[in-house]
């Protein structure tokens, strides 16, 4: 039985990267390595392409979006895709100099939503809110989860027991029930969603990190650092953490996908980011009433969120496959 099959036993855990890499080369490898790796698995490459597509869309939103995402045109309510804006349509603005008339032209490529906003523009700007809050929430959860996991795994003893018990308690709870309770106690705002996601996912991250640390803490380079008299924090963050990065990157991709779904679900349930900012989950909730007659305004956000999550999951799956290969 080779080492590889041992790791196949737990599909969620990938082999930790062994041995310390000199720091400068590690930086370079950190940049070039992942891109080269993508060539080894079509799953990872396709996933990375999908994610990159949405990141680009989010970055270039002001350039790509043909209309402001909250601009409403009465004539375009529930308009089907490829409807041109009727001639002579204009936005009236009341200023000190009197009424200002800005003509609007062009076409709603993906149609209009229930109150006459351009679905395409909202979709494009919606990518922004997803790609800001999902990574932010995941990063927050990771910061806390990693800290808890490192301390629990490296220090062991009572602190490990306490942290593990607490995370067992939180993990015992169905996630969405937990979110609903948390959001009931707090208000619906971006910050509270980030906090809720952190609270619910940090324990899971802690478990993974702790498992990896338990494996890595007995390595020779850790013993060497201990002999050198390095502090515990130095060993945890400089010696152990970088060598646990492989499995953590895979897990981060998966978790980013879950968080994207979570933010979408909360938006859909009316517990997410407050309107009118475009958000894929909110868009589906807002247009459900019109789904009978004009399904496009709910269909496109569904496709958008699914493709982003699919990209992240494929990336994670491909990376896991690659790391199992060598």
């Amino acid at each position, binding site marked *: 039985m080779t080492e590889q*099959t041992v790791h*196949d*036993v737990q*599909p969620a855990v990938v082999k930790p990267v062994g041995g310390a890499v000199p720091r400068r080369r590690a930086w370079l490898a950190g940049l070039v390595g992942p891109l080269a790796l993508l060539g080894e698995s079509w*799953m990872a490459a396709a996933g990375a392409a999908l994610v990159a597509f949405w990141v680009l869309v989010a970055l270039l939103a002001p350039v790509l979006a043909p209309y402001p995402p909250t601009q409403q045109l009465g004539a375009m309510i529930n308009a089907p895709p490829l409807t041109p804006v009727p001639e002579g349509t204009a936005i009236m603005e009341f200023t000190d100099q009197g009424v200002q008339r800005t003509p609007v032209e062009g076409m709603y490529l993906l149609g209009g939503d229930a109150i006459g906003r351009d679905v395409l523009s909202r979709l494009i700007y919606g990518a922004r809110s997803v790609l800001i809050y999902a990574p932010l929430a995941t990063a927050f959860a990771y910061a806390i989860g990693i800290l808890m996991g490192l301390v629990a795994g490296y220090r062991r003893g009572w602190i490990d027991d306490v942290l593990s018990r607490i995370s*067992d*308690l939180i993990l*015992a*709870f*169905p*996630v*969405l*029930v937990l979110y*609903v*309770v*948390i*959001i*009931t*106690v707090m208000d619906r705002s971006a910050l509270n969603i980030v906090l809720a996601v952190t609270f619910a996912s940090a324990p899971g991250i802690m478990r993974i990190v702790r498992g990896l640390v338990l494996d890595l803490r007995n390595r020779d380079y850790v013993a060497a650092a201990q002999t050198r008299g390095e502090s515990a924090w130095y060993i945890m963050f400089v010696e152990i953490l970088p060598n646990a990065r492989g499995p953590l990157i895979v897990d981060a991709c998966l978790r980013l*996908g879950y968080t994207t*779904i979570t933010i*979408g*679900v909360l938006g*859909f*349930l*009316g*517990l997410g980011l407050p309107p009118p900012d475009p958000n894929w*989950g909110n868009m*589906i909730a807002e247009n459900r009433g019109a*789904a*009978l007659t004009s*399904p496009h305004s*709910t*269909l496109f*956000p*569904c*496709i958008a*969120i*699914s493709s982003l*999550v*699919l990209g*992240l*999951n*494929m990336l994670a*799956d491909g990376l896991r496959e690659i790391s199992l290969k060598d």
Partner: protein
Amino acid sequence: MVIFLLKRFGFMLLTMFAVSVILFLVLEINVDTLASRVLGQFTTEEQRRLWLEEHGYLRPIWVRYGEWIGDMLRGDFGWSTRFNEPVAEILWPRLVNTAILGVCVFAVMVPLSLVSGILAGMREGSATDRSITFVSVLTTSVPEFASAVLLSSVFVFALGWLPGTSGMTDGWDWRQMVLPVMVLTLYGFGYVARMMRASMAEVMQSPYIRTAVLKGLPYRRVILRHALRNALIAPFTVIILQINWLLSGVIVVEFFFSYKGYGALLLEASLNTDIDVIQACALIAVVVAVGTQTLADIGYTYLNPRIRFT
């Protein structure tokens, strides 16, 4: 074995107790926000104070917790401000509806995902394996609300085969169950299938399977008699823990199809700050979650002799 069971049950009760304390603290420690949430923002300080006093919220928190948990254990879940009824009257029928939905989902999802997991894991890297893996990644990537929208636009709007809501307003109708079951099955299928695949692939590499193949047993027999017995142990735990996941899943699906179940009730209570209902629902979630975990542990230990005797 008896000592092990007692230990597990003791730990289960302890966990339930701890989570119920946390839950109670989270929802009720700050009585001022509680009052303004229940009564609305535009109430005076005086009104809130009177309400708090009337409902006994100004007593020490441990007294309130003791009273609350005592009531809960006796089946008195409090009064719903939203429905103006005792919570127990609403909650039990809702739970029964969700249980029916859950049983239907499991009846479809478990055989489907186990069979595809076995097929994929039997020959790692084959075309069947690759396509099943891809399908399971794809289905877990589509959030439930998205697959609900997609499926209803196909089966309700385009084809007109199925009803779009599952409110059961004119009595029980099985056709209204199809879409909710489909959505939940799609979302849960991938995870179980992949666990089954991983477990099957691992067993297929073990020496005893190679021995069985080499001594000339028919392939069917190797799979059905030798491989499956061991390969099914790990997914068993996963399947039991899916009950826990289902409690999350039903919130979205029941809301979407307006099915009158536990999830829709919890969401409605949350949107209307119906504290007693939220507490009762959350407590049910705790009992189910911790209960299924214990069940999974015990089952795993029972099925796997290697753990039982260490």
